[in-house]
């Protein structure tokens, strides 16, 4: 087994009284695209700063290529960062910006220019070499920042909400390009975002963070289909959460009692345990001919047409605390005020204990 490229071991960090990272361990594989996903205040940016060397963690270690880098300053680390505000040098040309890292390594001017041009070509900005940063658009500055960070061939490229300042259309476009560039150069990317769509589109490995902890990590397909905790079930895509408790457990089947009924599900949890059932919107069936798990009736409170589908919000008639989020075909006839039966298949129910 090969050693991980980056090994974060039991890192905790405090700013004054406030603990922003709580015993976080994470391994990054070479050539992978890792997304740190979480709401603001979840510690994801602090973790990225620790990787970049801008923050020294209060506890724990960071190993990069097997070497302890915990206290190594940014200049001496094999990492580079693409900053959220790009942080281009405003007084230098684009070529000067991209060549800066090589200049610090003592590379001669001619080689520097050639490699800077190559890096700019990689991000599709070959023509911008002699321009100044202020002459470029936001998306172009973003690419320059990317080229500047990649040209020094870092072991790990760190991206701090790189698409945050771009408008939606440009963001989706840059997202595709980022992925393509990452595959072409083969460098490990670690990318911080709070946008779950961005996370699903880009990540090989998705790390969901909340309140200084890693809630869940794995391939985005797995994190979406089988979230490990309530938080990741609601942050990475939407879910309807139904609280309940295990009342019976035998032969790999458990019975979960909730306010809206008791259900038999595959599982091995002990009786008496509090659990939550999560169902993705696309798995909820509205109307009579439904799945095996009958979730009672609900009153539709809102219907939002979203092009290819309708998003339906409905309040359970059995449990006032329960709100269903469902996704139905665009052609479905459903209106606010309708009373509908809600059901789903047993296989689509995600059993959460966290």
């Amino acid at each position, binding site marked *: 087994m090969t050693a991980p490229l980056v090994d974060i071991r039991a890192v905790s960090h405090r700013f004054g009284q406030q603990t922003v990272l709580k015993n976080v361990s994470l391994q990054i594989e070479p050539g992978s695209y890792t997304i740190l996903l979480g709401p603001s205040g979840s510690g994801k940016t602090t973790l990225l700063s620790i990787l970049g060397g801008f923050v020294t963690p209060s506890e724990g270690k960071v190993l990069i290529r097997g070497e302890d880098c915990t206290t190594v300053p*940014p*200049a001496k680390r094999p990492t580079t*960062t693409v*900053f959220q505000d790009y*942080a281009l*040098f*405003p007084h230098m040309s684009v070529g000067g910006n991209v060549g800066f890292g090589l200049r610090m390594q003592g590379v001669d001017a001619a080689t520097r220019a050639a490699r800077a041009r190559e890096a700019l070509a990689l991000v599709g900005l070959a023509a911008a070499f002699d321009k100044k940063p202020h002459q470029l658009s936001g998306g172009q500055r973003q690419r320059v920042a990317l080229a500047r960070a990649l040209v*020094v061939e870092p072991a790990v490229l760190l991206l701090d909400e790189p698409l945050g300042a771009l408008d939606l259309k440009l963001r989706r476009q840059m997202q595709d390009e980022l992925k393509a560039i990452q595959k072409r150069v083969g460098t490990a990317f670690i990318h911080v975002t709070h946008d779950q769509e961005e996370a699903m589109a880009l990540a090989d490995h998705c790390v969901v963070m909340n309140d200084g902890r890693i809630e869940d990590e794995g391939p985005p397909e797995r994190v979406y289909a089988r979230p490990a905790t309530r938080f990741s079930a609601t942050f990475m895509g939407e879910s309807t959460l139904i609280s309940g408790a295990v009342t019976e457990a035998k032969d790999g089947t458990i019975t979960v009692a909730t306010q809206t009924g008791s259900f038999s599900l595959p599982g091995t949890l002990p009786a008496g345990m509090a659990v939550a059932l999560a169902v993705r919107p696309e798995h909820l069936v509205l109307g009579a001919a439904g799945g095996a798990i009958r979730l009672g009736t609900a009153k539709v409170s809102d219907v939002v047409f979203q092009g290819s589908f309708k998003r339906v919000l409905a309040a359970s008639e059995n449990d006032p605390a329960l709100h269903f989020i469902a996704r139905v075909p665009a052609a479905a006839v459903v209106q606010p005020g309708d009373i509908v039966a809600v059901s789903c298949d047993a296989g689509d129910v995600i059993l959460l204990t966290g």
Partner: protein
Amino acid sequence: MRPSTVAKVIRIVSGLYAVAIYGFIFLPVGVLVLFSLQATSFPIPPFTGPSLRWYDAVLADTRLTSALVNSLLVAALSSAVAVTLGFLSAWGFARFTLPGSALLRGLITLPLTVSYLIIGMGLLVLFNWAGVPKSLLAAGIGHVVINLPLCFAIIYSQMGDHQINIERAARDLGAPEWKVLLLVTVPVMAPAIFAGFFLSMTFSWDEFVISFLLTRFDTTLPVEIWNLLRSGLNPKTNAVGSLVFAVSIVLVVFFELMLLRRKPA
């Protein structure tokens, strides 16, 4: 009266008021410059010029010309030192968390409120005690004392958080700290640095009290003009005064250009 007539009257009155204010400020200088062009020996009406004979006299006077060179040297060197120290302290205060930062910042700008006479006397006592002779160097040090707070205040006010990431980026790409300062912070801060430099030069250029107290044989232009004035008014003093004023104007224009030059977003 109709409202438009009232508005017209108000406009005329405020116009006159503005003329009076600017006249009050600039009339003395205007008179000085006008009588520097006097053709006869006394700078009193009636005006007999224009003539450049007194400017010729100033440029032929080696005491005045060497004082002028001294003044330029003291102004340029002391401003360079003041702006360097001011920049470094502004950078330190902006980038590092220092104990008692607000108090220390207050102390560094405090000399702005102290009269030049007090600063000059203090330095005179100190230099006497330390055995530093009265000289242009001593006056230059005095000018650093009065201009450093000014440079600090100008540069500190322009040192925003948005440059922090730019410096970080440089460090991230392998730049040692001195290269971060030299290749990134200084160029990014250049407008404020030049503004501080030119304003310092302006103040040093026509500073009198400190130079008067701290120089002896070689001295600066304002002190030399004062020597000249002791023998009474003549158009030569007006001519040299006009030259001083012209240089100040040039320095202030540079200062304004630097400070008001907005960086493209």
